[in-house]
């Protein structure tokens, strides 16, 4: 029996939850750990990934039928690198502070395996609309993942939640802040705890499904 074609909504939610790149696929770990010191930079990184991933998925999908198999990867890289370059210039021009805080990780979106992975695994086999839905879902899933990590790190580690610039809530006095959480090690701690909790939930669900 041929596999049923997935609807656009399913494709979208697949990336958002079921195949969440951060917590399920463990894709793009490098920025995940590096830019989650504050919610603001996580959001900025997320926005960048949304921009690049949606556009690269669409672009790859559009050219998928004309690209010789032998050079598909170089071509995907050219597309992604160009998009990242554009993104970088736009961010430096309009949100320079955010661009500075993301630093190298902005350029490194080029080699984020999530982007190339979706180009190869999905966009090269599906139409532009579905590819866009996949890109958006995955990118939002990634954004949600890093924002969640950043939320715990910044709240518990620095006592605040920075949404954008001066839009910052100071919630926990300095005395009660867990400083290690905003240091590099804190990223692993928070990430590990979150993954364990998510896995616990997923395993339990899987167990229940088996029992039924």
């Amino acid at each position, binding site marked *: 029996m041929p596999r049923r074609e997935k609807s656009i909504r399913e494709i979208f939610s697949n990336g958002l939850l079921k195949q969440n790149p951060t917590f399920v696929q463990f894709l793009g770990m490098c920025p995940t750990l590096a830019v989650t010191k504050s919610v603001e930079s996580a959001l900025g990184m997320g926005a960048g990934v949304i921009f690049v991933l949606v556009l690269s998925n669409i672009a790859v999908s559009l050219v998928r039928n004309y690209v*010789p198999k032998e*050079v598909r990867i170089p071509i995907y890289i050219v597309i992604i690198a160009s998009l990242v370059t554009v993104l970088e*210039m736009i961010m*430096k*021009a309009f949100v320079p502070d955010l661009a500075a805080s993301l630093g190298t990780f902005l350029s490194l979106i080029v080699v984020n395996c999530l982007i190339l992975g979706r180009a190869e695994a999905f966009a090269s086999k599906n139409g532009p609309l579905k590819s866009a839905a996949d890109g958006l879902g995955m990118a939002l899933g990634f954004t949600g993942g890093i924002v969640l990590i950043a939320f715990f790190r910044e709240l518990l580690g620095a006592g605040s939640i920075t949404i954008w610039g001066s839009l910052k809530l100071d919630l926990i006095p300095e005395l009660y802040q867990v400083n290690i959480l905003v240091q590099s090690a804190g990223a692993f701690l928070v990430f590990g705890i979150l993954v364990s909790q998510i896995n616990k939930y997923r395993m339990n669900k899987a167990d229940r499904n088996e029992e039924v």
Partner: protein
Amino acid sequence: MKHITIVVTLSIVVLVASVMVFFVEAWTTPIIDDYNFEQANLAKFEVLPLLEGSDSLEADLSYDFTGTSITEVIVIPGKGYIYTAEFQGFQSIITYMVGFDTNGNITGYKTLIQGDTPGLGAEIAKDWYKDQFPGVSINDFSEIDGLVGATITFGGSAASLSKVVDFHNSTFEGVVLETPAEKLARWKKEITIDNAVITDVSGDYTLSGGISRIEFANDGSKDVAVIYTVDFEGYAGIVEYIIALDLVTNDVIGLRIVTNEETAGIGSVISEESFQTQFDAMLQIDALNGNIDEVAGSSAPITYGALKGSLTELINFHKSAFEGEVIETFNEKILRWKNEITVDNAIITDVSLDYTLTDGIYKVELVNNGSTDVAVIYTTEFIGYNPSETVVYFIAFDLVTNDIIGFRVMYQSETPGLGAKIADDSYFVQFDDLLQADALAGNIDDLAGATITTGGLKTSLVDVVNFHKVEFQGEVIGIPDPVEMSDANLLLALPDAVTFTSVYGDYTYLEDILNIYEAKNAADEVVGYIYYGHVKGYGADNIEFLFSTDKVTNTVEIVILNDTQSWDLADEYANYDGSAGLDFNTSTWLENFEGTTLQMLLTTPVDTVAGVSTTTGAMISVIETIAQYHTDESIGGGN
């Protein structure tokens, strides 16, 4: 064919991507450049917000900033000017940047570097200060508030800014500033008469007292006034002023401060117009006596004192040069003073060679009234506040009462307005009839703010009085009277005795021994001797004790009379638990000194107690001293 497809596809993709990147770059580059430029020149943007990324911020090096405190100026055509300047704050050189627009308004002020006192001078870098500047006219920034308590820093800021404005006005606004020479010429007319013809006549006089120039102001027919250019050293530097005296009335017509290196906001206030106007038509006598109003709220005793001193010298110069007054020479003055404080027509004989002079006394003179010597004058020096110059004074003692009858200061280089007041007539008065005992006890007036100078004088007076007592009153100085001790306490030391008589006067004085008592029994036989001694324990605490021997030098008892903290530290020793004050007497350690002999104490030293070795060591040492003394002096004839 396959290869060509690959090459063509790759080429097309790269081409399309390049074109996209090219357009985005063309769009964003100017925006990024602007941002980077602004970041690199934040301070400049802050003080001149009209700046744009395309403006050249090259400093213009073609200007001469001498005397302006400016270090850099950037001219942005059509937009404004950015100055960087620096000035001396209270503790640091403060660098700031200020922007002017082309309409003559300040566009912004920012402190770049400062290291002044937090909470005071350092407030200059705070927003509340710099926020006052934007929109203020460069020619009137008197509304800018400083900070009370940090006058030097904030005053320095205002003074520096006005120099920047002067430079700006003359360089860019075409305002012709008076040169210093023009200003001086205008002032000389202001304080004499309009259209005065000024002639330098300095060569005709021997200049002194800081006077550097003498000029006549001629009204076209005759000389009407004389203008002196005078300088003096104030607190922080040199002050130069010009002063005009009327050649008919010889009163002051006017005064202007020409240069003023005094501290901004403190000594510098004498340059204020309100201060200078009081010299208009000031009587000569007021200038001579320093009857000058100080600027309200200012506290600059050194500057004011130096100015007053300079004015006095100047008026005296004028009197001798123009009023035919003969100003007495220094030696004449000293002689007059010596007569004033003793008797008129005194015959003064230097008898210094008859004495061994000590303690800064370097001259002793006898004053004879024609028949008898009535007084002695000591010329003495001491170091006051100024460590490099001594204060020299002379003081006269009546040879009958031996009290003080007069005092004058001959030389002093103490701080004007503070220690220098020691040379004022008003200070001399108290010595006209001062009891010797008061001089000895230092009962003389303190000069406010000059405790070091007056303290030095008091010490010196004690030396002079003691010298006088020894040489003229035949007193032996330096041996205090024996200190009395109650019989009740003495009984503790020698319970067998009934009467106690001090015999210390018969023996050599020793600092450790306050008194020595001979103790007798009811049959009036000597039963022993009691030493009342004292010694410094730990932390210089004074321990007083009684120590007794019988008449054949067997020790009897040691009684500790006061209990200080140092003894309490010995509480772990023997039976003493430190709880009952004088109960250290119960300590078995003290028994080391009792019931033995003085010879034994000298040959076999008692051990100190660990932990309180300073106190016990001192105690051992003083007892040994007494034992030796008892032997050496053959107290009671025995040894």
